[in-house]
């Protein structure tokens, strides 16, 4: 029997997240990846899937971490909650990070928990001074509890609030400026929200401070007819559409070389489909690098 239960701090080689294309690790692909170690630049897991006391998943993540740079992406930190943090959750995440030493840790600019009820969705914040104060306080406390900096991801949303007074891109930039955290720029979310709320996606990207961005997400989304209108739903159940690839190119031109991650959470296909999307993303990264060099020359 191994010392699975023991804290193994410092037992993994340092593997920073490269400015290359990675994929989100999902359960149906784990054993295949452990067995065949396919050529994938890096992997990202949902942190909350790995907080158990023991069992197969924890053992699998140890094997994965031996072979791949790992990013821990949270979905349940609820950084926008006015009631503040679940201290137990913060401590459990810290233990996870200390054990697996991920190259990046992140969560979302949204809220999920209210009054001790966890709603299991990335719910929208109004962009107000109050909400900005709340989320900056929570990001400060999370970074303190984790003992490491984190990235915060721009959300997709289906509503805008009467109360909002701050554009989302300013809200994102302000969180980074006030807390020192980085930004995880999800270009699919920007595309979805720009359609749903009628703003200019490229202007959004241009307004984000390039040196704050530590990671980019790409994904697929769905269209849903609502009466005469169409709403875009961020369902992560398909490959990115052409306009999202275009936005990625725009982001890479603005940001320079940045780690890019493909997320696929619903109707999960064969691993080869995901690695093919990652290859396409890598091609876009390579093109951007070449373009930049040509431009400089």
């Amino acid at each position: 029997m191994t010392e699975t239960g023991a804290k193994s701090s410092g037992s993994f080689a340092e593997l920073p997240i490269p400015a290359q294309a990675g994929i989100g690790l999902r359960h149906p692909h784990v054993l295949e990846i452990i067995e065949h170690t396919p050529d994938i630049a890096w992997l990202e897991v949902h942190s909350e899937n790995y907080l158990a006391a023991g069992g197969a998943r924890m053992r699998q993540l140890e094997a994965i971490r031996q072979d791949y740079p790992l990013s821990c992406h949270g979905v349940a930190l609820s950084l926008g909650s006015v009631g503040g943090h679940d201290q137990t959750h913060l401590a459990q995440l810290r233990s996870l990070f200390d054990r697996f030493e991920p190259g990046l840790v992140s969560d979302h600019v949204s809220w999920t928990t209210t009054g001790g009820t966890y709603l299991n969705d990335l719910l929208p914040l109004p962009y107000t001074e109050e909400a900005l104060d709340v989320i900056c306080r929570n990001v400060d406390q999370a970074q303190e509890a984790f003992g490491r900096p984190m990235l915060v991801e721009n959300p997709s949303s289906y509503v805008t609030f009467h109360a909002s007074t701050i554009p989302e891109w300013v809200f994102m930039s302000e969180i980074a400026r006030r807390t020192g955290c980085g930004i995880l720029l999800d270009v699919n979310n920007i595309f979805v929200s720009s359609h749903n709320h009628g703003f200019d996606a490229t202007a959004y990207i241009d307004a984000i401070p390039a040196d704050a961005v530590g990671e980019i997400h790409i994904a697929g989304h769905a269209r849903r007819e609502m009466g005469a209108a169409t709403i875009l739903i961020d369902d992560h159940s398909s490959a990115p559409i052409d306009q999202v690839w275009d936005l990625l190119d725009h982001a890479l031109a603005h940001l320079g070389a940045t780690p890019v991650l493909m997320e696929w959470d619903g109707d999960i296909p064969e691993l080869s489909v995901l690695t093919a999307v990652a290859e396409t993303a890598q091609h876009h990264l390579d093109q951007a690098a070449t373009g930049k060099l040509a431009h400089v020359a």
Partner: protein
Amino acid sequence: MLHELEAAFRDSALAGEIAAAAELVRADEIAAEDRIAVYANNIVGSLTEVLENTFPAMQRHVGEENFAVIAGAFVRSQPPARPRLDLYGGGFAEFVDGFAPARENLPWLPDLARLEWAYHDSYFAADAPRFDPGTLGEIAPEEMLALTFTPHPATRAIASAYPIHAIWAAETLADVTETGYQALVTRPELDVAAWDVDAGGYLLFTALAAGQSLGDAALVAQTEEEDFDLQGALVRLFEWGVFRDG
């Protein structure tokens, strides 16, 4: 303001009260209520899906639609209290027990929920080395009955008034044959297993797990099964890996 907004979203999903949240958001060609409903449906739908994944045998036996009704009622009445989906569903069996439409027609359903939760819970439980029965060779026979054993942290025991293991394993209820009324769920290494166990074996395990000596636990089992085969029962428990080392 943020406080009220959070409560309004929660109530839109869990209490079906969309109006308060809808007042907070802008409407255009899409009504504010319809926009809020996207979130409300996703909250209840995604949590129902979590329960579907944890309780597949229940869903198989009651049907997708009935399961969605029971699960949806549970989600609205007892949403997760922690940001941990792997911990969500521990109260489902008790809820099903108090769910009148199920209790009359499907009296075994709460026990099936207990067994499925035990299986799920075992998967995520702490690791520990399994007990090696080879070490018993060093024990003098006269000291054997004084031995005590520690349950493995991933072992779970379920007793029922129904053939619960057979119900759990059956593809349809017509396949259920009368078997034992107890189940042991184990995970000595990484793979979870559920075992059909007779009353004597179940009593032996639960008495040992409560800290009784092997001799005392055997007496407990004998009161239930007159011709209780201690050695046979113990060998099975060791094979299944219900105890841990140390």
